[in-house]
């Protein structure tokens, strides 16, 4: 059981392993599924949950090894399609051109707008958020806050959080005038907690978790709906997304069994521990 936070796609590592094995005259090791081994790759939002599920599954099925690797939803799609991974992790609904894959819903997650805790702003309308992100509003004073420059924190291209955010507010990425661009949720939370004028968006689960640990951030409501795990569960929260395991139409037997396990009541507590919402 291991998790690798790596920037390189699986196939590059396969290439490296393969070339080294060839060089020293070994047979290429078969690192893909062979009945007792499962590779899961994709969204960094889903990975911690998948990791916990995998640990529990491994304990119940000695001899099975499950490898969880992160790299974003696009990688989950790519790897599941190419067969590099048995299961892809994707933190959004499948698109029309991805209908060759099957989605298995394992949890729900919401995206929350977050500010520094010291920021007195309690609520922003959708239009205000759009104005801030497109650079029309550059000071908190203009939306009823203190005289403080706004630091717009945006996500890097390719992240599903960015796609969901853009889609919800009907923006394109080139319209956004960011001051900081971040990679994952943690970098976002660190950036915003260190900057009183910052605004950003991260997964509600992660944000709520950080708040309980005393990180100086706060979650803004969306419209009249409070940003909370509970509201995502009841389906009230507008800015939410499904967390899926995706496979080809015929996953391996082990894969099918793990999918049944991941959608069963055996893992409900794990979903809640990660501040996600069980479907």
């Amino acid at each position, binding site marked *: 059981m291991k998790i690798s936070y790596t920037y390189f796609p699986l196939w590059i590592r396969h290439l490296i392993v393969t070339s080294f094995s060839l060089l020293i005259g070994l047979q290429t090791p078969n690192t893909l599924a062979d009945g007792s081994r499962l590779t899961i790759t994709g969204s960094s939002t889903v990975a911690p949950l998948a990791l916990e599920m995998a640990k529990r599954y491994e304990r119940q099925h000695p001899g099975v090894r499950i490898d969880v690797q992160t790299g974003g939803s696009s990688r989950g799609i790519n790897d599941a399609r190419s067969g590099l991974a048995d299961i892809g992790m994707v933190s959004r609904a499948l698109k029309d051109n991805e209908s060759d894959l099957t989605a298995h819903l394992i949890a729900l997650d919401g995206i929350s707008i977050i500010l520094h805790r010291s920021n007195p702003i309690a609520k922003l309308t959708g239009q205000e958020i759009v104005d801030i992100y497109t650079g029309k509003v550059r000071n908190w004073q203009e939306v009823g806050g203190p005289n403080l420059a706004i630091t717009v924190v945006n996500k890097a291209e390719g992240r599903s959080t960015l796609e969901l955010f853009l889609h919800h507010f009907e923006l394109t990425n080139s319209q956004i005038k960011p001051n900081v661009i971040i990679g994952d949720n943690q970098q976002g939370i660190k950036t915003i907690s*260190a900057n009183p004028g910052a605004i950003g968006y991260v997964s509600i689960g992660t944000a709520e978790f950080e708040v309980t640990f005393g990180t100086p951030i706060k979650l803004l409501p969306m419209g009249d709906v409070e940003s909370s795990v509970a509201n995502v569960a009841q389906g009230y929260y507008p800015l939410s997304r499904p967390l899926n395991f995706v496979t080809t139409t015929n996953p391996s037997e082990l894969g099918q069994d793990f999918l049944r396990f991941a959608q069963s009541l055996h893992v409900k507590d794990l979903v809640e521990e990660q501040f996600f919402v069980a479907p």
Partner: protein
Amino acid sequence: MAYLINQSINRLDRGAFFALGLISLICCSLLGMVIWFLFHESLPVLRGSHAGSFIFDDSWFPLEQRFGVMPMVWASLAIALGATFIATPFGIASAIFLAFYSRGPIKSTFRLLMNILAGVPSVVLGLWGLTELVPIVASIQPPGTSLLTAVLVLSLMILPTVTLTSTAALSAVPPQFLEGAQALGFNQKSVILHIALPAAKAGIISGVLLAIARALGETMVVLMVAGNVVQNPSGLLEPVRALTANIALEMAYAMEDHRASLFFSGLLLTLVVWALAMLSTRFRSLDGRTQ
């Protein structure tokens, strides 16, 4: 004598020649493979319709088919040169201190500190920059993640490179040069300024070039503290995105032309660092000749 020894171990020698030669060849061919691989992976976008976009598009929105890399090229150069600009005087001063003014425990402690600084993982320096330096810079002008922050953290990172290579170059100055100068009545300051530094010049320049190469290739620090906004570096306090940070941020999420364009920026970076390394070797061999 040498001829006799040559005769007796000739067979062994030839074996060693082939074995060592083969190992060296493998190492070299790995480098060749990497370059070929980068080139091959960036081909689709070089041949495609977006090739001109690299230079002529002023921004980077791969999902909207805009692949302007020039702002990031300038940003990378600005960060690397800025860091070198700060690290070089401090590095050479430290090297002079190490080679001429420090003795005994002070010298060994200082050298140890430099070695430790050289070994601090860049992600740790980046974390320090993000939590300590960024808020300070942000109090001048938000967001704090900026060209200046990246330059400051990177200069700390390449300082030991400059110091250690310059110390080595200064120590390699033949003692008779220094003794001769002293015998002629030069004081310490003149010995250093007019004899040691000119004699070690090529070695010092070689070290500085290596430091630039290291700064250009550094990823983690610039990813964490430079702000990653794609724009031409227009001010010290403005956020910028370096080529390396761009690859690290987006590679795992990129497909098709977007992916190929990231490979292309990797190829570009490799070639620049390669040229710097070659130049550095050239300078070092110059140093050998002056002695």
